[in-house]
């Protein structure tokens, strides 16, 4: 009951699912209790520094980040020996105790701080934030998959920002009340102490959860896992060997350098302006509060919307592009208001959209690699970037001494780095999609392709026909052997197979060449059969006028004979005609055999028609598509005609008066032919929106797309069809939902379920025509037959490769949402989406 109320309350704030409430709240407060003391410490640090030293010393303070990086490297070694729970708790205690140590060292009253204490405090504050925040995000990354994280990351981020606001306000108010920096530090350590309890509760709760629900291990167990045994070098090697991680590392370095430039510019202007009569703790307290309120509002109202609506690429580009414009601005107008604007933008966007997007980038990385990479990138490289930024500043300072001149110079250097940052972000977003893709295995390929890759269907059928004819007709048998010899496929294995129980056979004519009196069928054939000579002999005999004349008489007699034996004779004739030259008189007679009522005679006639490929056979072959007994043979024969019959086939396809099975078979043949024209004909027919052949037409397009990537498809027409299919899917889904309450309608419900399955398949096949085919196939297969996690990755992949308009209407039918919510979204989109209005 209480849980339901909590869920109901939280669902107003965040897109949360049942079971996620407690862990989400705990993580929210965990982050809050880290950022609140940090903001107090940061305000004290910056005010104390500028009150005692000039901005020209700032690069040296920034450079202490390198020491932090080295300490972090040592810290990562510590993790080898300590479990995660213990590591986080002991880190918190370490920072509480060291805060008390600084409190002890800080001078009371108006006494100035010593340089070394200011620099050491600066460095310690850096260490504080890098260790604790990284530990927090590692925990979040382990606990949630990309889709869950995408929903909740904004909520956690808000916790951090709210903590910062709380810390900033506390600083401002207490500083105004003349509470000293020293006392503020004591308050910060007190808040951090509360965090110890929060973290402890997270791990206790997780352990309970693990015991209660073994099934839900994916979400909850990773927290309680033993820590991985990784050292700093291992972390460094992990990043060095992975292109994606190297890109992430490069982005972090450039981001850090630009932030240092901006920080120095803004602090220099603050130093010059000296606001609040030199009481800089109040200024920094206010500034931190204001910028965090902005960050909070941005995070709360914008971050998730931007990421969901425009995708991760846009989210990654927004931050550098805003800084690009502001850096140009401050170069021209270096006043306090601009300094506050650029620093607040940097801070707010870094805390909100950049942090969220960057964490999302880590999600598809496997947990062990991610863990190592985050240690190196977030804990070490981030600090290293600050030092690098400081070094660049020191170099720039070497040439210019006046702060007024240095500010625009630093701006232009910033702009150059930001341009590099934009390029890196574009590369990262592309690699992100590839990394998500790697998470999705291809579960099956098209059946026809799988079969074609593994075997030769024509050869297989010939072997079966040979075996079948062995007991039926020695003539057919001989002709099949002749076919095998011609195709050079009479392998030793096949010879043995054919000779199996060969004594049952009484062969004559050509077959006798291969048979002996013994059980072995081909005792000496290899010595005297010359394949080419045999073929030539057969052709010559069949071309003889006298042979044609004689056979004509035999044909006329056989065709009118209605006895049972005559069927075999007609089969032999049909097969024999296929061996003749196409100009032979008897070839004209094949049409009559194509009309034969016996499917067996038809089979051989169809096969011969495929060999001769005369256009007069086409109508008869097309008719054979209607009969299931001759359909496959007719399809195979017409496929052999190839692209020269595309137009004819298209006529049949477009003729709605024709038999529907015939037209379906025609789509299959056009798909096999797979030329640009064939694809165009299929698309035109699909655009007619007749509905009766949609599944076959869509399957045909899918086949062409998978086998002939060079073929182009009319994108707009296909997309329009996708919209219609999605609309249809919505409607079926709503009907199914409504019918689920009517128990008597079981058969209707099953029919709707079936339609829903096929409709989803059609949607994805069409998507594969206009988007990367393999990616779409991977996504579809994992949605249909994957685990909850692979479904989430599939949706994430689609989220990144589909256009917005497509994404908006497709995701509601595949995302992991409740039935009621899906129905609601489908109904709402059916009413409001302009896409559906257009398709209507």
């Amino acid at each position: 009951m209480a849980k339901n109320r909590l869920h109901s309350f939280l669902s107003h704030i965040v897109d949360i699912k049942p079971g996620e409430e407690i862990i989400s709240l705990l993580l929210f407060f965990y982050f809050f209790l880290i950022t609140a003391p940090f903001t107090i410490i940061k305000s004290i640090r910056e005010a104390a520094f500028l009150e005692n030293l000039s901005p020209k010393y700032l690069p040296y303070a920034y450079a202490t980040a390198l020491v932090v990086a080295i300490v972090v490297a040592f810290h990562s070694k510590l993790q080898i020996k300590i479990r995660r729970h213990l590591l986080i708790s002991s880190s918190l205690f370490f920072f509480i105790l060291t805060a008390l140590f600084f409190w002890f060292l800080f001078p009371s009253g108006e006494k100035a701080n010593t340089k070394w204490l200011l620099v050491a405090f600066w460095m310690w504050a850096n260490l504080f934030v890098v260790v604790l925040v990284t530990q927090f995000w590692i925990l979040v990354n382990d606990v949630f998959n990309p889709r869950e994280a995408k929903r909740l990351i904004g909520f956690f981020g808000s916790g951090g920002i709210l903590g910062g606001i709380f810390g900033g306000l506390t600083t401002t108010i207490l500083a105004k009340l003349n509470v000293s920096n020293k006392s503020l530090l004591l308050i910060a350590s007190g808040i951090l102490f509360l965090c110890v309890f929060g973290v402890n509760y997270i791990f206790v709760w997780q352990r309970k959860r693990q015991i209660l629900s073994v099934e839900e291990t994916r979400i909850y167990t990773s927290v309680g896992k033993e820590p991985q045994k990784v050292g700093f070098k291992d972390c460094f090697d992990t990043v060095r060997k992975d292109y994606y991680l190297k890109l992430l590392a490069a982005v972090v370095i450039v981001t850090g350098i630009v932030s240092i430039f901006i920080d120095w510019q803004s602090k220099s202007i603050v130093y010059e302006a000296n606001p609040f009569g030199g009481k800089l703790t109040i200024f920094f307290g206010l500034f931190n509060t204001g910028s965090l309120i902005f960050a909070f509002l941005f995070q709360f109202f914008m971050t998730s919307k931007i990421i969901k609506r425009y995708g991760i690429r846009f989210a990654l580009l927004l931050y550098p592009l805003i800084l690009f414009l502001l850096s140009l601005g401050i170069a021209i107008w270096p006043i306090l208001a601009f300094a506050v604007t650029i620093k607040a933008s940097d801070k707010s966007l870094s805390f909100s959209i950049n942090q969220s997007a960057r964490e999302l980038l880590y999600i598809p990385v496997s947990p062990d690699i991610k863990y190592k990479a985050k240690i190196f990138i977030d804990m070490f490289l981030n600090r290293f970037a600050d030092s690098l930024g400081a070094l660049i500043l020191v170099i720039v300072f070497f040439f210019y001494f006046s702060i007024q001149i240095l500010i625009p110079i630093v701006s232009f250097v910033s702009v150059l780095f930001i341009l590099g940052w934009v390029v890196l972000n574009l590369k990262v977003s592309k690699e992100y999609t590839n990394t998500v893709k790697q998470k999705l295995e291809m579960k099956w390929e098209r059946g026809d392709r799988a079969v074609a890759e593994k075997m030769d269907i024509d050869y297989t059928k010939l072997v079966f026909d040979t075996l079948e004819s062995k007991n039926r007709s020695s003539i057919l048998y001989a002709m099949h052997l002749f076919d095998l010899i011609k195709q050079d496929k009479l392998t030793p294995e096949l010879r043995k197979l054919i000779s199996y129980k060969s004594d049952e056979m009484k062969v004559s004519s050509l077959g006798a060449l291969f048979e002996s009196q013994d059980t072995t069928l081909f005792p000496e054939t290899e010595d005297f059969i010359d394949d080419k000579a045999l073929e030539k002999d057969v052709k010559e005999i069949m071309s003889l006028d006298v042979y044609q004349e004689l056979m004509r008489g035999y044909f006329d007699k056989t065709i009118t004979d209605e006895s049972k034996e005559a069927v075999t004779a007609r089969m032999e004739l049909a097969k024999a005609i296929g061996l003749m030259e196409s100009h032979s008189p008897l070839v004209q007679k094949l049409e009559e055999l194509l009309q034969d009522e016996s499917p067996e005679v038809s089979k051989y006639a169809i096969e011969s028609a495929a060999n001769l490929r005369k256009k007069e056979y086409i109508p008869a072959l097309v008719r054979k598509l209607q009969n299931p007994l001759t359909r496959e043979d007719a399809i195979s024969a017409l496929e052999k005609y190839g692209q020269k019959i595309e137009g004819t086939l298209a006529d049949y396809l477009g003729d709605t008066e024709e038999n529907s099975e015939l037209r379906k078979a025609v789509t299959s043949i056009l798909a096999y032919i797979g030329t640009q024209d064939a694809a165009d004909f299929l698309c035109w027919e699909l655009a007619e929106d007749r509905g009766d052949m949609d599944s076959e037409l869509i399957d045909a397009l899918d086949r062409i797309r998978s086998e002939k990537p060079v073929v182009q498809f009319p994108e707009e027409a296909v997309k329009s069809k996708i919209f219609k299919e999605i609309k249809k899917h919505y409607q079926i889904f709503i009907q199914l939902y409504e019918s689920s309450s009517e128990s008597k309608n079981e058969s209707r419900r099953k029919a709707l379920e079936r339609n829903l399955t096929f409709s989803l398949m059609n949607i994805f096949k069409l998507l594969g025509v206009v988007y990367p085919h393999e990616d779409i196939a991977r996504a579809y297969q994992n949605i249909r037959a994957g685990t909850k996690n692979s479904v989430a990755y599939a949706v994430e992949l689609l989220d990144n490769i589909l256009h917005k308009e497509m994404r908006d209407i497709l995701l509601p039918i595949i995302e992991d949402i409740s039935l009621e919510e899906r129905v609601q979204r489908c109904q709402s989109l059916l009413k409001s989406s302009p896409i559906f209005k257009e398709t209507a």
Partner: protein
Amino acid sequence: MKISTREKNDILIFDIEGEIRRSDITDITLHQLVKDQLDTGKRNILLNFQNVEFIDSFGVGEILASYISTHNLGGKLKIAKISKKLYLVFQVTMLTKVFEIFDEEDLALDSFFKG
């Protein structure tokens, strides 16, 4: 040819009797029967060949078409209890590369759950 169906653990078994050949088909083909079952949502199909004496090229086409239709929907079609002679033909024609073939029905049924 006679075909009857039964179901075990969500696996549909087709017991085929006789010869799968063009001349023996009366009203409905094996492929059509398989497609009908796929339409109802079945995805795991086992062809029991215990009483299949012979198949011709039409029969091969039917089995292959059934395999393709099943495979395209992410399903599995396997064969059990095939005769030695037919198995030999399947081997020579490399049909054994396409189909998973089992000596015993139970082994075939188990294999559906082993991925």
